[in-house]
């Protein structure tokens, strides 16, 4: 593929890609509303389950988290799941399977950026329909007055998480060039992320050695660290470790993505039409 600089015309085209993606996604408004409804129900059940654990154990705090903290934690987790729920790999898989990648290639746009823009449009809607409502509820029930520094820190963590998940999504999407069907691989990675990122159980409840390993993995910064930063229950050293680890992972994954794309893009074949 011929190298293409990003000029003004291209930027307009990329923005148009986002707008088209938004319009396409909004055709399925009911799906977003139902997803929001079921996510809300799931958080409520999560809260009831943990309430039973706290009442059954008859303690006010487990590993430094009180029951109200757990409630806020899971609302934050579901808010953050909206951020790290990228469609990038699925879109790339669909492009390879349907042959859509061939038409993408004749556009005067760089495929990796163009496909990211398409993914970004649905990500944006997920953030609007999932992240914002759950984040608002978390603020409402926690009665936390967020300091400017905390907001800034949260934004940095969320940005790192979003870049990381998109890099992982892009690398996964590229495997479709070889494997064609990657739905299972995508599910394995995203479920692993949910488990190792603290989406099912707060990481501080895991054994100490597991925690230490997970804090330097790319997963903790996606869910656990932002959620506990919001709550104020995580130490500064964990936050710093998570951010540094996240940045290092971004560098590693970016290099891996560049190398892999450089090699694999020549092997793309249109599997459909």
């Amino acid at each position, binding site marked *: 593929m011929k190298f293409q600089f990003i000029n003004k015309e291209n930027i307009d085209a990329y923005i148009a890609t986002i707008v088209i993606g938004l319009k396409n996604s909004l055709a399925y408004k009911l*799906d977003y509303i139902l997803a929001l409804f079921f996510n809300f129900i799931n958080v409520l*059940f999560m809260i*009831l*389950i943990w309430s039973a*654990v706290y009442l059954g154990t008859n303690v006010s705090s487990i590993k430094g988290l009180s029951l109200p903290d757990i409630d806020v934690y899971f609302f934050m987790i579901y808010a953050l799941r909206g951020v790290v729920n990228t469609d990038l790999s699925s879109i790339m898989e669909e492009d390879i399977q349907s042959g859509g990648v061939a038409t993408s290639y004749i556009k005067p746009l760089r495929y990796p950026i163009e496909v990211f823009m398409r993914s970004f449009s649905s990500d944006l809607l997920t953030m609007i329909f999932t992240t914002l409502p759950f984040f608002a509820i978390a603020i409402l029930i926690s009665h936390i007055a967020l300091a400017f520094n905390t907001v800034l820190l949260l934004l940095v963590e969320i940005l790192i998480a979003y870049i990381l998940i998109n890099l992982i999504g892009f690398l996964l999407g590229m495997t479709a060039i070889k494997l064609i069907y990657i739905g299972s*691989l995508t599910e*394995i990675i995203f479920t692993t992320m949910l488990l190792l990122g603290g989406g*099912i*159980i707060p990481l501080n409840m895991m054994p100490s050695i597991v925690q230490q390993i997970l804090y330097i993995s790319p997963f903790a910064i996606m869910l656990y660290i932002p959620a506990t930063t919001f709550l104020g229950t995580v130490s500064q050293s964990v936050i710093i470790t998570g951010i540094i680890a996240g940045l290092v992972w971004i560098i590693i994954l970016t290099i891996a993505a560049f190398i892999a794309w450089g090699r694999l893009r020549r092997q793309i074949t249109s599997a459909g039409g």
Partner: protein
Amino acid sequence: MSIVDSIRYYLITQEYSWKKFFAFRAQSLLWLFYNAFIGFLSVIAITVIYSVSSGFAGWNYYQMLILSSTLGMVLSSIWYNLNSWEISHSMRHGGLDSYMIRPYGLATVMLSMGGAYTELGGFATNLAIFAYSAWILHLSILYIIIFFSVVAIGTYALLMFFLMFSVLSYHLIKSSRFINNLLATLGMVGNYPLSIFGNIIMLLFTLLIPIGIAVYYPAELLFGEINITLSLAIIAFSLTVAFISYKLFYFLMRYYTSGGG
């Protein structure tokens, strides 16, 4: 058509679907691995919960594993046979019409359309977890046989319920994607004793969305928490749910109009 013909038709479609499934071996094995892996998630969650707390009142760790693995097996069986999305998709695009001319019962045809065959991986994992927990708890073979019989009746009722629900949701909103969301929610709720959610939710998941009849009540029976009269009442209720769902399914299908061609 006799029930033998229906079973033969079901088995033939199974053979065909498995061959189709293994056309992409790497993908098939990854999906099987994924489902097997998913089976362990609830074990991890329960293990962590019991390592940092006393867990759920009246339920020890291995009893929780029995409950959770039973749910895994029940949901795997449902996902294996029922693809709600495929059903509503084929109704919307008219693809179902070609299936409807086959000389078999509509319920058999729609349950043979192809579910998630990879759920076999999840079923195997949960069966292994169940066997291990049952061995640790020294459960008698007779109790386990009775338990699985009640679970099987409950699962059949639940399958009929979701089949009917898939058609109903097509009539109401022309989509059944939310059934997948609902099953995912059940996958979380059913992992835990229904009693912890309070009476209203317990009734909801017993009468309205009857996951309790396939998982929670059979587990209570296995641990001797409910008597034989209540157990028989649950079996009778399961059969009633299956019958009503079956009749409602055929009633709704009478009003089916093809959405495409």
